Structure formats: C-alpha cells, structure tokens
C-alpha cells in the first residue's frame, strides 16, 4: 500500500494568482498521477507525473496552466496557474504502491476555491 499526504488540504485564492499543491508518498512508487474533481463531478485525469522529465498531459490540460514536477519517486507538485473561478475543484494526487499490483492509492485531496 501507499499513504499519500497532500497539502494544503484546502485554500481560498484570488483570481489571477497561482497555487502549488504538494504530494508526498510514504514509499517509493512507480507511477504518480494528478486528478481533478469538479464540484459534484467525477474524477478527471490531468496528467501522469514522470520522474525527472516532463509530465504527460491528458487532452484538455496543458503544461502552462498545470505545471507538474516530480523530482524523485516519492514527491510531486501540481501548480494551478493564473486561477479563475472555473478552477475551483478538488485536486487529488494518486500513486501506485511500491509494487505495482493494479490499484491506485489516493490522497485526501486539496480543495481549492477561487474567488
């Protein structure tokens, strides 16, 4: 298994600013992902965080808006840039366990409100 910690757990931000969310896993993991859950909606994959290289983004998400870093096997960050109210969502970090046995583990999410 893997225990995933995210911070901040919630924040209220002003339009036009940027916020960086941190994700820490308690063990080395093979894969890490970032998801967005808009109010009352399901989860949508933003990108796969690749260690030491650029993240792989899904359709509709771009690096300029959601820059991602993954400097090592246990840590990743997601930045939401130039925020607008439409970015108000829960952002979730997920990861495989140390041994990739098929499931993903999730942090409790970062609830972002943009005014």
């Amino acid at each position, binding site marked *: 298994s893997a225990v*995933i910690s995210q911070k901040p757990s919630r924040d209220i931000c002003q339009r036009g600013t940027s916020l960086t969310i941190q994700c820490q896993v308690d063990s080395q993991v093979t*894969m890490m*992902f970032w998801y967005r859950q808009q109010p009352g*909606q*399901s*989860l*949508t*994959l933003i990108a*796969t965080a690749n260690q030491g290289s650029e993240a792989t983004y*899904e359709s509709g998400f771009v690096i300029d808006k959601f820059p991602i870093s993954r400097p090592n096997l246990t840590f990743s960050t997601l930045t939401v840039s130039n925020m607008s109210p439409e970015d108000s969502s829960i952002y*979730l970090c*997920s990861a*495989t366990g140390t041994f*990739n*046995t*098929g*499931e*993903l*583990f*999730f*942090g*409790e*999410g970062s609830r972002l409100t943009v005014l």
Partner: protein
Amino acid sequence: AQSVTQLDSHVSVSEGTPVLLRCNYSSSYSPSLFWYVQHPNKGLQLLLKYTSAATLVKGINGFEAEFKKSETSFHLTKPSAHMSDAAEYFCVVSDSKYGTASKLTFGTGTRLQVTL
C-alpha cells in the same frame, strides 16, 4: 479507448436491504476494473479490484462484484446495507493490459443513500 458507464446516478435503499450498483465497461484489452468509495470530504478508498483472476471479487465491508465478460458488466453488490455505506461509489477501468496500475478512467459515480 476505455470507458465505464454507471447506470444510476443515485440509489436509495433501506438499512438491512441488498445493495446493487450497476457498472458497464468498454475496453480494448482484458480490463482491470475497480470500485472505489468516497465518503463526504474524504479521499477515495479502494473497495475491490478485478485483474483477470476470479470473476467474483470480494472486497472490504462486505461488498463484492462479479465480472461478466459476456455482458461487459462489473456490478457491485452487498447483501445488507448499513448506514455507514452511504457515500459516492465510482466504477473505474484501467488501461493497462498487464494487470498493473496505469491511468484510470472513472465513471460518473453513484450516490448511495441508506435510510432507516
């Protein structure tokens, strides 16, 4: 391409009665399928997973699901609902054909309400 369809956005049952949450999938490979639960203001928790072993999968808290390839279904069931089961449930498919985790595609979710 892969996708999942959760047929009910909201299910309401009485405590002590059976639960059925329906899910159909589409996948190019033999899929890995999961059910996750999300309690209010909490993260996602894995209930159970199917990765090409036994077609009847038992999970936590008395839940189970049956993989039916002929029907492309993976419905979640529980014989007797408890008040603590009230939550949002997501059916999820993985694009990995090797049974290892890769990016997941989530269904739209089913909100389970349990009444006295």
